């Protein structure tokens, strides 16, 4: 009897899944068009899955093995079951293989079940709680119905009652794992996830066989010349279709929630919930069925939306509240951690763009900062003619006077901040000690546009960027060095789309090359226990974790790492305009970061970002660790006899030799 039932079950499940797939694809196609290479994308799925995605999943060894067993077992079992039971080709080894596959899957599902017994808060509950049972039903059912096929049991063992029972169990498993894959349910992630990998909007973030960085972190530019192009995302259907596909791929594992600094600080943001809300919006309905952690302070069930309705309401509630979007520090911890490679930050900035460009609703001091950027080219509204006042005594060489330099020192808006001026002085001292041929733009420099862009003001960003690019094009230099990771990221990764391609170094990287080349004589000094705080825009955005540590090592520092460092470094709270929009939470992000520091027992935190310096130094606590920029530490290790004399003209050649 099973011979008749099983093929019917399998093929009807497949047919229903196919119908579901068409429906699902239609949902995604509500989004705006975004051309993708279909065949090449599909062909890249195995590698993207096995290498890039696995790389992320493998950070949790138990879960990784569980997933390999369960998913691998399922894919093999399903394929074999179609052959063995669907087509009735049970000959030879196939049946045994099917038994092995379902057994492996069962073993995996046991681990899934164990994890679901007392799940961590970040995991979604609801339908996800039945998944281990469904997995077991499928694997056990298939295992049992295969036993007669390989001849271990007689074909009619157990009689018709057992056969119907088994068929029911298999049907349950098929319903969850095949039908549910496209009609919604926990297994949706497999279908949507595979296609998301194929049609990802940032194909360059995946590794390729030839090697290369496999990184893509710059925000995508809006086309402002096209008057009909939407300015950001107002409604779910304004996302591109592959962004919607990406949201649909979410497996609700909550890794993003666990690393999100805003969520931890009690600000109303949870990246997982945000992605789920986008799915709710794409399908239409309310978030009442969401079974994970809510946005802090915002109960589930009060928000609803539809594909063509606004995401953020002008008054009252819609899908998401504006303050949720403005809580993000754009630290990319969620993106770094997401096993489904979802781009949360892109989505948030897209929605911010609409709020700023169309509605003019940048909250708190956002509007003032943007006005200042427009009128004075710096966020503080300072006289742009006073950019070099801090360095009146340093006699910095202006590139306008010389036309060229080996290193263009990009000072950033820190020139207006008294704290950052100390860092800049140190950096200048170090560069002079190393006899680097450098020059600055002086009053010709403008804000890089980072803050404007993260606040959603693409127009101001592009205006600033284009002017900076025009200025830079007048001069010849080999590379740009900056001590601001935000400028670094924007100059390096975001000016390219507007026609500015430069070799850009963060000062820690550049100092490292100077030390490697022996251009600096360093006297290691005792600094006690030191820890290093990775700036998001240097680490996660640009993958530079090693150079700052190498510099600290060269200083003879006893480096202790915080529990969250490297790619898991916790944000200082200063990125993405978060201090400007200033959404209240239960605690402050920098306070949490300084607690991380305290746990290491370090007396000093080395940083490499003016924003981090300001945020962490703003923490008021008893026995707070000292905060020093890497440039300051290097400058101190040079001693006082390293005369900061302007580099003589004939030293340029020697510097080049050293650099070469």
């Amino acid at each position, binding site marked *: 009897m099973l011979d008749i039932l099983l093929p019917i079950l399998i093929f009807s499940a497949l047919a229903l899944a196919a119908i579901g797939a068409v429906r699902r694809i239609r949902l995604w196609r509500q989004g705006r068009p975004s051309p993708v290479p279909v065949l090449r994308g599909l062909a890249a799925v195995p590698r993207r899955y096995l290498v890039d995605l696995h790389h992320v999943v493998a950070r949790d060894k138990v879960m990784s093995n569980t997933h390999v067993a369960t998913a691998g077992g399922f894919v093999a079992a399903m394929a074999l079951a179609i052959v063995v039971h669907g087509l009735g080709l049970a000959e030879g080894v196939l049946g045994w293989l099917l038994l092995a596959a379902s057994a492996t899957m069962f073993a995996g599902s046991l681990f899934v079940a164990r994890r679901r017994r007392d799940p961590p808060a970040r995991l979604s509950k609801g339908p996800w709680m039945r998944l281990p049972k469904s997995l077991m039903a499928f694997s056990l059912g298939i295992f049992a119905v295969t036993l007669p096929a390989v001849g271990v049991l007689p074909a009619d063992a157990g009689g018709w009652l057992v056969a119907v029972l088994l068929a029911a169990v298999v049907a349950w498993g098929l319903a969850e794992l095949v039908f549910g894959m496209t009609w919604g349910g926990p297994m949706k992630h497999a279908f949507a996830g595979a296609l998301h990998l194929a049609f990802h909007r940032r194909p360059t973030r995946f590794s390729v066989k030839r090697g290369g960085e496999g990184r893509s972190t710059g925000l995508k530019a809006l086309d402002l010349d096209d008057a009909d192009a939407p300015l950001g995302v107002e409604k779910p259907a304004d996302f591109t279709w592959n962004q919607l596909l990406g949201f649909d791929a979410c497996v609700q594992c909550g890794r993003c929630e666990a690393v999100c600094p805003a969520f931890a600080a009690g600000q109303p943001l949870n990246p997982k919930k945000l992605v789920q809300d986008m799915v709710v919006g794409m399908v239409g309905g309310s978030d009442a069925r969401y079974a994970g952690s809510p946005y802090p302070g915002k109960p589930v069930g009060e928000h609803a939306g539809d594909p063509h309705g606004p995401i953020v309401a002008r008054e009252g509630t819609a899908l998401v509240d504006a303050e949720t979007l403005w809580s993000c520090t754009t630290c990319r911890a969620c993106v770094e951690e997401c096993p489904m490679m979802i781009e949360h930050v892109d989505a948030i900035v897209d929605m911010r763009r609409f709020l700023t460009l169309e509605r003019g609703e940048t909250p*708190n001091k956002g509007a003032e900062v943007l006005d200042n950027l427009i009128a004075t080219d710096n966020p*503080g509204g300072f006289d742009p003619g006073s950019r070099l006042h801090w360095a009146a005594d340093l006699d910095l060489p202006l590139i306008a006077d010389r036309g060229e330099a080996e290193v263009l020192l990009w000072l950033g808006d820190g020139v207006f*901040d*008294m*704290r950052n001026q100390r860092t800049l002085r140190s950096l200048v001292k170090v560069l002079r000690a190393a006899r680097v041929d450098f020059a600055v733009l002086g009053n010709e420099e403008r804000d890089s546009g980072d803050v404007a862009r993260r606040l959603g003001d693409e127009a101001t960003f592009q205006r600033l960027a284009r002017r900076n690019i025009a200025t830079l094009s007048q001069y010849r230099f080999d590379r740009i060095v900056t001590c601001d990771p935000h400028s670094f990221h924007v100059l390096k990764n975001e000016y390219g789309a507007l026609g500015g391609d430069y070799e850009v170094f963060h000062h820690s990287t550049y100092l490292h090359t100077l030390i490697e080349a022996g251009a600096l004589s360093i006297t290691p000094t005792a600094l006690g226990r030191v820890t290093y705080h990775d700036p998001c825009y240097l680490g996660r955005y640009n993958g530079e974790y090693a150079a700052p540590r190498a510099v600290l090592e060269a200083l003879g520092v006893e480096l202790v790492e915080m529990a969250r460092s490297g790619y898991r470094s916790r944000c200082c709270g200063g990125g993405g305009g978060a*201090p400007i929009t*200033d959404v*209240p939470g239960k605690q*402050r992000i920098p*306070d949490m970061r300084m607690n991380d520091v305290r746990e290491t027992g370090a007396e000093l935190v080395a940083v490499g970002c003016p924003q981090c310096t*300001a945020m962490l*130094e*703003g923490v*008021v606590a008893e026995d707070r660790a000292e905060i020093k920029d890497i440039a300051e530490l290097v400058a101190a290790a040079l001693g006082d006899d390293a005369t900061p004399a302007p580099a003589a003209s004939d030293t340029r050649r020697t510097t080049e030799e050293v650099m070469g």
Partner: protein
Amino acid sequence: MSDIVRRDPRKEWIARNRLHPEHFAVLAELGGEGASPSEWIGPSGLIRRNPRAVGFIGPNGIKRIDRSGGQRGAQAAQGRRSQAGPTRRSVAIEEPAFLIAVVPDLAGGRLSSHDRDLLGLARQLADADPERPGAVLALTFGSHKETAFGDAGIDRLMAFDEAIFDGYAPEARLAALQAVERELAPRHWLLPDSSLGGGELGRRLAVRLGERAATQVWQVEADAEAPSGWRCTARASAGANDLRRPLPRVALALAECAEPVSETHHAARPLTLSQPLPEAFTRIEDGGAVAVDPAGVALAEAEFILSAGNGVRDWDAYHHAARTLGATEGASRVAVDDGFMPRDRQVGATGTWVTARVYVAVGISGAIQHLQGIQRCDKVVAINLDPGCDMIKRADLAVIGDAGAILEALVARVERERQGAEEQRDVA
């Protein structure tokens, strides 16, 4: 008593000669009635000396001993004291060749420094030709407490103190000025260019008279080529430019446009219009003052800020102090982060840049961002426990001690002062 010191060479000689029989008598005479001799012959014939009586207290409060014998300190000091108040020359202009009309703001019922500067300017215009001096005519509206109009350089004073001029009554005031124009036709009209006083009234007047007023005038110089004989420099383009033009009949001048009158005293003779004022048609009605909580005033506008930081323990007492002092509340970042103060009260580079005249920092140690935010404050007062903190270095006045106790004492002091003032008012 005459101020002129008459010298008697003979007596001075005797005073210097300690052996002269009349020495003591002369000394006593020269030293004045109050001066006691430092040496005298006692009943037993011995010379007695009072060392404390030697010398005199000099004008700067230091004891001086004059061996020349003429201990004239006391007398000299007395003489000088009577000279101390600089005497003003009295000026009375009986037949003025022309009139310069000034409408002072009388903010708070008294001539403000802006008004005095303006009157100084009016005097310049009136006194330019000593042969044909003009008179400065001041027009006041409503009741006032000013008594020294003459010292400010006013020759004629016309008071419009009817009830219709009280409060915000631009139409009635304009009608009065028009009546003055008709009857007296002053050569120039000068008004202080203040936002809600002369600045407004002056513009209304200029428009009514059909004159293109010079506004924001900060300098007036003689210029023979100009029709009025004067040319002025005025701020234009919201302060970005200077406009130089001949001085028109109506000018609205900024504070410090001229030096106030300090050497002369003028008659400030009352003057009235011969015709009664016509009934003015009013379309603007003053509904009276609306109570506003100083704590609610925007930080950037506030001129007196009481700012609280980490060192404040008793927040109720702090709020009470701010209310009593009439200060706008500010806060350091920490106080805001800890939830004691709302975010819009945060002072500093990351909060609001403030421009207060007086900034009192209570228990704020002075993070660099905070100090940046108060750069443009005139006077900074710090109350802090830690004498080494950066705020103390910035402060013009720093009191080291417990913030709570000092605030309490300050509140008590202010309340005492206020009570005193009220009692005085009652007596008066």
